[in-house]
């Protein structure tokens, strides 16, 4: 199972890619494997303002619901609408085309608690 080194992670199984003041968020290869075949992704709306730790999206497999928690307080700037029609992309490309939402970082220090790949793997 792959955990790219250029990403940050949360113990709740999200990956986070920080580019400037925008963070792209998805779920880890481990999370999609545990959930099984993803059949629905409930996305947030662009413009939603969320607190760090709030549930931004829900990823549903045939058996379970996984919550996707935002790692930063801020406004949702983009959502991966393609997942509405092809939720299975979260399984096939969790770190690529399976990204879920982007959030505008309002407080960069919130990045301090994020894990690196080794730190995340240690939690599994």
């Amino acid at each position: 199972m792959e955990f790219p080194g250029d990403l940050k992670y949360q113990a709740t199984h999200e990956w986070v890619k920080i580019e400037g003041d925008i963070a792209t968020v998805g779920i880890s290869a481990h999370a999609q494997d545990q959930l099984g075949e993803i059949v629905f992704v409930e996305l947030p709306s662009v413009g939603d303002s969320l607190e760090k730790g709030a549930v931004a999206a829900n990823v549903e497999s045939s058996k379970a619901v996984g919550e996707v928690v935002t790692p930063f307080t801020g406004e949702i700037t983009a959502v991966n609408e393609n997942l509405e029609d092809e939720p299975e992309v979260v399984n096939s490309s969790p770190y690529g085309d399976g990204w879920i939402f982007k959030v505008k970082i309002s407080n960069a220090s919130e990045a301090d608690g994020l894990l690196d790949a080794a730190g995340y793997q240690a939690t599994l």
Partner: protein
Amino acid sequence: MTEINIRKTPLSEMHEKLGAKMVNFEDWYMPVKFEGVIEDHIWTREHAGIFDISHMTEFMLEGPDCIPFLKHMMTNSIGIGDYVAQYQHMCYPNGRVVDDLYIYRESAEKVRIIANAQTLETDGKDFNWLKENIGDYKVKITDLSLERTRFAFQGPETLNLLNPITDKDLTQIKRFRWCYTNIIVNSEEIPIFCSRTGYTGEDDWSDSLASFEISCENKYATRVYQIFLDTGAKPIGIGARDSLRLECCYALYGNDINNEITTVEANLGWVVKEKEGFNFIGQEILLKQKSEGPKKISVGLNLLDKGILRAGYRIISLGGEDIGHITSGTFAPTLNKTVGLALINSEYKAIGSELDVLIRGKKKRAVIVKTPFYTRGKKI
């Protein structure tokens, strides 16, 4: 702590070797999926799959009063001949369901029962209920559950794969009939109980498309599993077992029927039959509900908005009233849509009516549709 008590079936280790993802299901260590829930599901609809259903229970009733005793205990007619299987409910006096099960009549004095899994919490539920009510009936009940291994061999290719390895011609077994036969491979001969029943809907009543449920003594279990797999059938997990049954709207005990829902409320009134000269447990309320209509009833739903229906979600009428809840829900792979069963106030049951399902605090629109969602050879 319960980990210690999780039960393994005689096939658990083979499932692991076959690459299954194993889970605790109803206190049994069971394969939830092999390839994947959806892949397992589609394979069964298109080919044939082998399910381990050893978590279920198997009893033998023997004695001169078998039939009168069953007429007292069960809601359906019991008016069946030898080597016929019949779906039954066992109910409490209030009409709510102890369990749903099949009876398999061998003679007026010998009848097999196959019922649901007993969890650690409900251990012995069916067996004890039968024993408690035996009174003066001359019947001996033997629990065969842990001595025997149960399989389901389901899917359109089942007859083609299974018939060549059994000594009876299974094309001659009609739906809801059963037989004793032997699996014969080379010089091996393994006795099995073989019933043309199932929980997948893969049976069109013809001589060419049938599915079977099978049991054998534990000592043959792994060998039978291997022989079945060698036919080309694939192992299937309980995840697909659930989505396959839900497409057919077969009730799941614990969800769609339980000790808070009556047989008639579960929209299974056809399982309730008045029996001349016999009062069955729960008769009064069940017959009343059947003739007058129950206050709440199970209906089939399609979700019109995007999402997945799950047991427990509340149902809200378009007028804003809380009218019930989802009892089972899934993404239906054969239909490529979200379906569910809901127990709602009967006044809202009309097919075509819309209502809302509360999913994580948001209303999602659903419509009441005809059930079952799937019938062999026909999609909605």
